Every structure is written in structure tokens, then in C-alpha cells.
């Protein structure tokens, strides 16, 4: 298969990838932007399909008209080629650049420089009943609302952790979902009381406004509280809420069942490291021991691997604005490396943003901490890996009776992480269980992120001779 050549490829069309594309194109470098979605936006600027035909497609989207107009203009730039519907399923260094294999008709491309902006995915902690219909992720609830204008239910519990909880709960309340409870396993008061230094006033204001919205609907966020069980006949009908201690263990006697027809739950984000690991990028630990690892980068978003830059949540969880700042820096730095016209002060100005973002990221990291007490929410039959339907009991058996001591041997003996998602969804949780059971100091969360095939691709598409 003969591959096209491009000076710069950007993988991922979220805020980071789009900012990188814009910066590089402005420096005169032709950019190939690859993303599986039909239209750009990534997680945050998620858009309903054009075919949906809503009269005002932006009405539901907080990201607004302005952003979308800018994205349209960017994609119209003759230096920018947006290959929609293209997932990079494998990547490899070659003598003459980085080979990216895509699952669309084009098949592959060789780039002199690559910006990895593959983002992060939501983490959902498992508990008895979490696989019942009616249980969805917080981001999923938001997507339903933003993408299709649909409410997840009429009596909704939102329970989890992380910065999504408040804004999505507020959006659900505004849209008329009968919210039953909003529970944060962490302590959101740390967000709002101005506790963590470095949270920018805008973020605090966002949080405060979400809290005010919830209050108008008669709801207060319950701190240190989690949904630890769900049950129902064929779909969720009841959710058990419990108080947690600082390590997220259930406080005995605090459990209460509440009636609900939907449960939105997630516990922060996990960077999507597959592509970065395939290209040999180094990882850095998060701001706390339990935080998921992310791609290590320098002040200019360089990964240390020749020709590879990374930006956005793949380098650490920080929200859309930080992702966009990093994207600009990466786009400029990569463009300069392939001969683009980038002035020193432009690059320095972009990189300066990152230093300012640092304090915020550290503060955010403390709020996003996921201590290991959740392992105790599960029963032996609770499914940890959904694709291969592996229950906790089988992992325990592998550890107790098959000599498995680490994530990889647990995978090989139980099939955890071997299914369709290849550990993207369960990887952090399997690592958490293994660390809790073996007493390892920190979960080996990247173990299941190493996967040479980044996304499923039909054999017929591989079409080699």
C-alpha cells in the first residue's frame, strides 16, 4: 500500500486538535486533520448530526455559535484537509516519518510531524447493577441532551465524581429531568470554597452558577456520597446511595435506596494513550498517585519522540480551554519543525499560557483523585470488564489461584480488556482492583492502554497484497 505524504498530521478534532490545526495553518503549513466523527468538535463541542435538522442546532450547545463558525472557517482553509470518518488504528515510525494507518478508504499516510490530540474518555467505576439499562455515563447523558435533545429519564440520579458532575446536573435540571439526587463521591466543597489554590475565577463562577441552578430546582449536591448499587427488573428502578469515608469506603449504615429510572455516573477521565504509546511516548504520573498517567510533554508540547507532539487531555485532564491552549502551542511548535513561519515570541506567548495553566491543573488533580475504596462496592459477580463479561470473582480467582500478580497476567488469565474496547473502558478499573488486592503502591493504569490496534478495523479494509 503506497501512502500519501503530508508535512503535518493532527489526530483528533477536539479543542486541542482544532487549535493545533489552526495554529499550523496560520504558519503556512498544510495540515491533515484526522478524526472519526463526521464533524469536528471532539468531546466538548459535540454536535448533533447535520441530518438531525434542528431549527437552531446551537440552542442546546453551551459552546455556542461563535465556536462553530470558527471551526467552519478553519476547515474551509485551503491548507487544511479534514478527513472525517478516519480513525487511526495503528501508528509506526518509519525511516521517513510517522506512518498513520486509518480505517477509511485512504488507508494510510506518512507525516513528517504529528500532533496527538486524542483526548480522554470518561471513567465509570463498577458497582452491582452498573450494567443495567438505564445506567449511563454523565457524558453520555450530556450527549443525549446536546446531541439529540433527549432526557435520560424522568427520575434521574447523577452520581460520580469530577468536574462534569455539576454542569451536567445543572443542564439536566434546566432541561426538566426530574433529578432525584446529585452525589459527588469526592468533596465538591473543595472546588467551591476556593480551597484548591489556582482554580481560576471563571471556573469557580461556573461551578457556583451550576450550584445555584440546582438550588432553584430544590437540589443540593451531596458530598462524599456515591451510588453503590442499582437494581430493577430489566432496567434500573432503584439506586442505593451511601456515604463514603475519605478513602471512598461505604460508611456502614448510611445506605439508602431511592427510586430512579436513570442513573448518570462517571468518575473523572482517563487519557486516551493508545496512539501515544504505540509511538513510544513517555508517560508521566498524574498529580496524585491514583490519577491516571498521561503523555509527558515539555513546555512546547514535545513528547521527546522525534516528530511527535501531544496536546489536550491526552497530556492530562484540564478542560477545554487548557486543551485549546496546549493545541496552539503544539501546532506552532510542530509547524516550525516542518518549516512553517513561526516567530519566537508567538511560540513563547503560547507556551506561557501553559505555565499559567499549571497551577490550575494541579488544583484540578486533587479534586479528581479516586482513592481505592470503590473496590469494596463490588460483589464477586459484579462485571468489571463488560466486553468480555469478566466478574470481580474471576479476577480474584486469577490472583488467588492462578498466580496472577499484575494487570497483564490478570488479562491473560481472565480475558479482561481483551474485548472490543481493548481495555479503554475497564483498564483503569482492572488496574485498581489488582493494585488493591496485591497491595501495589499505585495502579498500573497504562498496562491495558498498550494496544497495537487502536480501534477495531474490518480485515477486508486492511487490503494488503
Amino acid at each position, binding site marked *: *500500500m503506497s501512502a500519501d505524504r503530508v508535512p503535518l498530521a493532527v489526530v483528533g478534532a477536539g479543542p486541542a486538535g482544532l487549535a493545533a490545526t489552526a495554529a499550523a495553518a496560520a504558519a503556512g503549513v498544510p495540515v491533515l486533520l484526522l478524526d472519526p466523527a463526521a464533524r469536528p468538535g471532539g468531546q466538548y463541542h459535540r454536535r448533533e448530526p447535520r441530518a438531525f435538522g434542528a431549527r437552531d442546532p446551537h440552542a442546546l450547545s453551551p459552546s455556542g455559535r461563535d465556536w462553530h463558525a470558527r471551526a467552519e472557517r478553519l476547515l474551509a482553509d485551503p491548507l487544511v484537509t479534514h478527513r472525517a470518518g478516519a480513525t487511526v*488504528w*495503528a501508528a*509506526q*515510525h518509519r525511516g521517513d516519518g510517522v*506512518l498513520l*494507518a486509518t480505517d477509511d478508504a485512504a488507508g*494510510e499516510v506518512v507525516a513528517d510531524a504529528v500532533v496527538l490530540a486524542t483526548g480522554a474518555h470518561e471513567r465509570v467505576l463498577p458497582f452491582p447493577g452498573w450494567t443495567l439499562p438505564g445506567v449511563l455515563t454523565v457524558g453520555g447523558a450530556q450527549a443525549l441532551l446536546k446531541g439529540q435533545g433527549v432526557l435520560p429519564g424522568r427520575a434521574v440520579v447523577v452520581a460520580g465524581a469530577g468536574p462534569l458532575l455539576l454542569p451536567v446536573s445543572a443542564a439536566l435540571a434546566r432541561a426538566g429531568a426530574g433529578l432525584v439526587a446529585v452525589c459527588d463521591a469526592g468533596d465538591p466543597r473543595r472546588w467551591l470554597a476556593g480551597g484548591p489554590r489556582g482554580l481560576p475565577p471563571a471556573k469557580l463562577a461556573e461551578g457556583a452558577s451550576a450550584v445555584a441552578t440546582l438550588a432553584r430546582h430544590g437540589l443540593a449536591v451531596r458530598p462524599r456520597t456515591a451510588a453503590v448499587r442499582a437494581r430493577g427488573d430489566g432496567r434500573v428502578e432503584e439506586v442505593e446511595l451511601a456515604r463514603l469515608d475519605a478513602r471512598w469506603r461505604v460508611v456502614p449504615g448510611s445506605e439508602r435506596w431511592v427510586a430512579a429510572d436513570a442513573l448518570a455516573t462517571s468518575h473523572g477521565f482517563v487519557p486516551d494513550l493508545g496512539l501515544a504509546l504505540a509511538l513510544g511516548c513517555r508517560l508521566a504520573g498524574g498529580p496524585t498517585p491514583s490519577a491516571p498517567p498521561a503523555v509527558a510533554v515539555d513546555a512546547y508540547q514535545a513528547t521527546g519522540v522525534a516528530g511527535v507532539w501531544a496536546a489536550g487531555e491526552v497530556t492530562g485532564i484540564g478542560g477545554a480551554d487548557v486543551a485549546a491552549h496546549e493545541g496552539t502551542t503544539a501546532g506552532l511548535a510542530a509547524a516550525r519543525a516542518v518549516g512553517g513561519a513561526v516567530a519566537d515570541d508567538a511560540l513563547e506567548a503560547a507556551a506561557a499560557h501553559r505555565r499559567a495553566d499549571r497551577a490550575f491543573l494541579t488544583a484540578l488533580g486533587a479534586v479528581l483523585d479516586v482513592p481505592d475504596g470503590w473496590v469494596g462496592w463490588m460483589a464477586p459477580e459484579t462485571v468489571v470488564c463488560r466486553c*468480555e463479561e469478566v466478574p470481580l470473582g474471576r479476577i480474584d480467582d486469577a490472583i488467588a*489461584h*492462578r*498466580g*496472577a*500478580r*499484575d494487570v*497483564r*497476567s490478570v488479562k*491473560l*488469565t481472565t*480475558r479482561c480488556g*481483551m*474485548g*472490543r474496547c*481493548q481495555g479503554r473502558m475497564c483498564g483503569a478499573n482492572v488496574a485498581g482492583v489488582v493494585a488493591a488486592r496485591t497491595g501495589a503502591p499505585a495502579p498500573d493504569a497504562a498496562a491495558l492502554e498498550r*494496544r*497495537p*490496534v487502536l480501534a*477495531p*478495523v*474490518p*480485515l*477486508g479494509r*486492511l*487490503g*494488503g*497484497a
Partner: protein
Amino acid sequence: MSGVPTEADVVVIGSGVVGAACAYELALALQRVVVVDRGHLTAGTTASGEGNILVSDKPPGPELDLARASATRWRDYAGELARGFEYEPKGGVVVAPDEAQRAGLLDLVAQHRDVGLTVDVVEGTDLRLLEPHLARDLDLAAHYPDDAQVQPVLASSALLAEVRDLGGDVVGDCEVLGFDHDADGRVTAVRTTRGTIACGAVVNAAGPWSPAVARLAGTDLPVRPRKGTLLVTEPLPRLVHHKVYEAGYVDTLTADTTTAQVSAVVESTAAGTILLGSSRELAGFDPTVDVAVVRRIAARAVRLFPVLADAALLRTYVGFRPWVPDHLPIVGEDPLVRGLWHATGHEGAGIGLAPATAQLVRAGITATPAPCDPLPFRVSRPSLAAAAAPVVPA
């Protein structure tokens, strides 16, 4: 860090399928066994093998004898071990996509019949009954009912669990650093990162890393890594019923090249996934999955089973077969370092050949009867001496 037992009759280095089988057979012979592995248990080559137990791909000779003895022993294990390992006596089907492969196949079938192997040549409807989804233009195949399959990691961990039940020890994260010898050069102890184990004998079952272990004892082995890539599909309903491979595969076994050779090997697993192999390449320990090789393997598999064009590829992995220049395993005591027994060099057949290899080792160490003639596998055989200075990367 917890230590290791200070004494053993036999120390087995390596917890791959070969080390696990050796430890089990030795433990059955009442030897006090300690298995050490520098990494996680059974995470070496064995974790990247397909698990085929083949007689069909070996021309008559010592390796076929070893394979037949092993196939029988695997059947025993399926009944004897307390933990399951997805043993499937499913049989092999060898197809011939072109004229040259057809001639080679019929010739091998004739040789196999001469040594009493069960094999049927199947054509037309009979072949469709065996493999309904095989490409229409493939109209001749050889069916070997005695080929079987196991899940290699489960099989090894089942063997190691048995070793523990029999009073042996299995220690991971424990690297062998060197050996103690007596005045005659005989091995008396194994030094590891977790302590020293005094012992009567040592089994070097370190797979492609066995030369490095041999060098720690002051000797050497002409074993080199031969890279192989495997593709794994999403779980599917049973589309492939046997282990199906193209006859040309047999030739790639002995064609030693530094560029990748690809021939189709296709089989379903108990989990519903389909494994697609495979490539062979003498390229050192380079773990990169080569996209071009992945494409070639996919194309060969779709050539045999067009229905697979719509099957999603979920993962690929790479492993390093312990290759030997004369393509025979090395099993026996080192002529220079007494007490050091090698059980390595099984290349792409170590899973299939592990049980009889283990019986050979047990026979040598405990002076009990062997399952087949041990001489062809000895370390000092002439065909290895000729290859003492391998030209391929280590």
C-alpha cells in the same frame, strides 16, 4: 522482598509452557522443584503463542516423534490437571491455494501415511462439510484429526498450580543472575535476585532468552529470536472449525529470512475470537508491530476465508520464537556444565512439544525411561556445532 527456598532438587528457570511442563513432570517424579521467572509468570513467548498442538506440519523425523508423544501427553493433561485450559482436539485442515502448494501437500501426506499418521485427503463437498466458509476455489485439503489446541497461558498456569499442589514453589519477579559450581564445574546452586537456591540440577527453560542464561553458566546456545505477529478478531460465531492453514506454511518453517514471511494460519478459540497467523522474521527482539505485515496476514486469511473480510481486527501481538539453525529443539544436559539441562529452541512449536520435552528432561535427571529417542535433541549434535556462529542478529 520475599525470598526463595534455599534448597531444591531441581531449579527450573522460566515459567513458560516448557518450564511449567518440566516442573510438573519432575514434581510427579517426586523431585522438589522451584520454578523461577524474572518477569510475571508465563508472560514470555508462551503468552504470544497460538496454542496449536500439531503433528501435521512436521515431516517424519525426530521432531514428529516428539510431537506425537507430546500430543498424547496433552490428552492426559486434559484429564489429569485440576484446572481447565481449553483443550480442544479439533483436528487440522491443510489447504493448498496453488499448484505448487498442492504438490507439496500431497507429498507430505504420503510421507505421513508411511509413518502411520492418521490423515485424509478431502475434496469437494466433504471439504465444505469440514469448513463451510472456506473460499470456493479451494477444493483440496488434508485433514489431520490428531491436531489439537490449548490456551497456552491457562495451560501453563494449570501446570504451575499442580506443581504448587505437589509441594513445589513458583516464584515470579525473580531473575537468575548466575550459578555456583563445584570443583568439576558442576552446577551446585542458582543465584537469583531473591536469594540463592542450592540444587542438584537446573533446567534452562528460558525460551528465546536461554542463550543469556547459558552464558551465565559459562556456556552458549545458538538460539535466536524469530519474530512472529498474530492478529485477533472480535468474538464471532464459529466460522472456522479446525486449525486451518495453507500448505506453504510448512516451507516457511525452515526458510530462515530476515524479512518477514507470511502464510495463513487460521483458527477459532474457545472465547470466540479467531487467531490469524503468522509471520516469521529473524529481526532480533524488535517488538514493533509492522503495519505492512499485519496487512499481509489479514489478506492471506481473507484469501482462505472470504467471510472474514467483515470481521473486525481487535488486536495484534508479537512474540519471539526460540529459533535454532537446524530447526530441532535442544533438550539435554550441557556437555560443558554438568547439572545444567537445556529445554529450549522449540521455535514455533514449544506449546505442542512441551510435555514430551519435559518427559525427556525428567528421564535424564531421574534416570527413568524416555518417551522417545533423546539423542537427536542433544546439545552436542553435529548440526548445531556447524552453526556455532550464527549470522543473524541476537
